[in-house]
């Protein structure tokens, strides 16, 4: 029997790696992928607690998060494609049209 | 009995490549038959050893890797396809005794894992570093993703009737209903047949890998054994898709009319079929040109008679003995494999009958016809079940009624699609 705290540590580790990816990398696609990692970490957390309590509400919440992640990935990639068509770049540093 | 799943897994991994090779031979023979010629006849008697010759040739070919290709991804892409296909076979129940894992999400597991084969295609096309490969891979992946939705909704239609996702319980539910689900949900079965043809990249939906279109699509730069792995993956996918249809719609391992004891003489059909095939082998044996082929054909006939006797044994043994108890396993496996074989024959029949779809026609068919139809199908089956359970209508009135309603909606969808096509054509002419 694996204690629930092990799942929490795993979830923390994945979340931290995801945060590092978002604040450190320049390529926006990798930033999006790190966001997906963070959402996954939260899912593990929810399902671990749902297993502890014995109800399925954590499962339902996790399904909503996966649905959300799908919607966000689709729209985010659409934005990236639209921006790429205009500026020919994939680096977050160079997407600075709103800078004064 | 912890070793039963292990033995089943070993049998599948060992036998599947051979079976895939013989399905290729069957396809060439069926193609030849529909084109009024004979097909491979030289290598063994009636070409029966052709797959072995093909396998040896492919193993001995030179292994070419394109220059700028990403070598790691090039190496791993066919493996992903084959792994996904074979892993999907682990939840299938070929007979009541032959199953690796009876998951309680069985059918969804098969659908989901075989969907992971898309990565093999996309990564293979990408790593070949060639325009044709990339285009073919992207087209193929787009087609698979589009028809996966329609196939999934068609499966949901059948699952509503079954009430469970486990493969064993679905077949038990068909036994309880007394009728296979193909008769209760024929529109769902039709949608699944069309979607599964597109899922496996077979004609008429095989634009991504047709020889005259994109050379060979994502398989262009693969030669020798890597290509054989892709081919194996494609035929494994065909077997998996046929097995899903057999489990969900065609009654799995149930004999036709499994519930009526009056028709128990149908239990002798497997042995009779095998004896017929053996008789044909013995009839053709003297007519072979070469002595060795005569002997091989005779040996094949003998083997088939052995199979027929094995199938006959549980029926004539006194009931209660171990031999009589093997009836369910042996006959179940036979009926399942026969139905899978008929489904694959249907695939081949359609391949050599219809011309190919253009890619935009293919996408239009998937998104604008099949998906709405499958959603309406789910609603129709739900309506039939509600009519049966809440209002007490009998099965024989509720299901035909909803089938007619669904077909009516399909007709409306088709008419709307044609009107839209004509409107687009008119607008196109005005602009031009």
């Amino acid at each position, binding site marked *: 029997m694996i204690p629930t705290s092990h799942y929490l540590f795993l979830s923390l580790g994945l979340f931290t790696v995801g945060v590092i990816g978002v604040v450190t990398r320049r390529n926006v696609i990798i930033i999006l992928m790190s966001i997906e990692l963070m959402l996954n970490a939260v899912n593990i957390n929810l399902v671990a607690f749902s297993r502890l309590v014995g109800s399925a509400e954590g499962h*339902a919440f996790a399904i909503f998060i996966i649905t959300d992640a*799908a919607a966000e990935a689709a729209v985010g990639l659409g934005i990236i494609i639209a921006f790429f068509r205009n500026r020919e770049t994939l680096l977050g540093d160079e997407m600075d049209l709103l800078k004064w | 009995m912890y070793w039963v799943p292990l033995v089943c897994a070993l049998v599948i991994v060992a036998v599947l490549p051979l079976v895939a090779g013989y399905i290729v031979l069957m396809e060439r023979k069926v193609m030849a038959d529909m084109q009024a010629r004979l097909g491979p006849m030289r290598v063994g008697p009636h070409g029966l050893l052709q797959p072995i010759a093909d396998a040896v040739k492919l193993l001995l070919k030179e292994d070419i890797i394109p220059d700028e290709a990403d070598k790691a991804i090039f190496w791993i892409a066919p493996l992903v396809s084959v792994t996904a296909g074979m892993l999907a076979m682990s939840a299938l129940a070929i007979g009541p005794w032959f199953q690796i894992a009876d998951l309680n999400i069985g059918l969804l597991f098969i659908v989901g894992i075989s969907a992971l084969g898309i990565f093999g295609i996309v990564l293979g096309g990408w790593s070949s570093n060639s325009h044709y490969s990339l285009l073919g891979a992207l087209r193929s992946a787009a087609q698979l993703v589009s028809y996966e939705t329609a196939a999934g909704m068609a499966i949901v239609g059948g699952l509503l009737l079954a009430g469970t996702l486990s493969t064993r319980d679905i077949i038990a539910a068909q036994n309880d209903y007394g009728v296979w689900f193909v008769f209760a949900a024929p529109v769902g079965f039709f949608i699944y047949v069309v979607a599964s043809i597109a899922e496996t990249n077979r004609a008429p939906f095989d634009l991504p890998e047709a020889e005259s279109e994109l050379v060979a699509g994502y398989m262009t730069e693969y030669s020798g054994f890597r290509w054989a792995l892709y081919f194996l993956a494609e035929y494994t996918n065909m077997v998996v898709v046929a097995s899903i249809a057999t489990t969900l719609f065609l009654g799995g391992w149930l004999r036709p009319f499994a519930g009526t004891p009056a028709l128990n003489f149908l239990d002798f059909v497997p042995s009779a079929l095998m004896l017929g095939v053996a008789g044909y082998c013995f009839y053709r044996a003297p007519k072979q040109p070469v002595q060795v082929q005569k002997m091989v054909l005779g040996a094949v006939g003998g083997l088939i008679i052995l199979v027929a006797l094995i199938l006959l044994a549980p029926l004539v043994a006194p009931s209660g003995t171990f031999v009589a108890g093997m009836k369910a396993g042996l006959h179940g496996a036979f009926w399942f494999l026969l139905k899978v074989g008929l489904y694959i024959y249907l695939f081949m029949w359609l391949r050599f009958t219809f011309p190919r779809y253009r890619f935009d026609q293919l996408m239009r068919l998937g998104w604008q016809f099949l998906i709405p139809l499958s959603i309406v199908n789910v609603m129709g089956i739900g309506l039939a079940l509600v009519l049966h359970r809440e209002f007490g209508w009998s099965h024989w009135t509720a299901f035909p009624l909803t089938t007619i309603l669904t077909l009516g909606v399909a007709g409306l969808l088709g008419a709307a699609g044609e009107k839209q096509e004509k409107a687009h054509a008119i607008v196109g002419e005005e602009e031009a």
Partner: protein
Amino acid sequence: MLDQIVFYFFATLAMISAVLVVTRRNVVQSAIFLITALLATAGIFLQLHAEFLFIVQVILYAGGIMVLFVFVIMLINLDVSLHQVQFNRQWWLGLVLALVLGAQLTVAVAIGRSGLPLGEPVPAAMLEPSTELVGKVLFSEYMLPFEIASILLLVAMIGAVVMAKKKV
């Protein structure tokens, strides 16, 4: 015993894949490692007896979202991106802050795990099949979020189509 082996295998695979996602120069390799990380997470779900969530993760996340990512990466691939600088100019600050965040959370969980009044998990044999449990909960208590999620998907679909059109 088997439980522990499965958990540690999938946990190690997930962590290693996650670190590799964030550090690869080639975007396609990052995507492949993200697929392995997602499949490892699905394995963790399976180990937690959440079978429906396992297969939903495989079908939607690994078989849907990642296919979308790989498509986009292959369509807008830049050869020059292999030679650009990988990390942005303030990478050291981001790393320190992220590690501080991770350390805070770890300490919080480590201190709190013995103090929380969590009982023993429900034994696995007494759980209903996960699909039926999730179905019951999703269609009775959480019907409203379910419908809102479907509208969200519709909006996202329309948004993505509009974003990707050449002339609006």
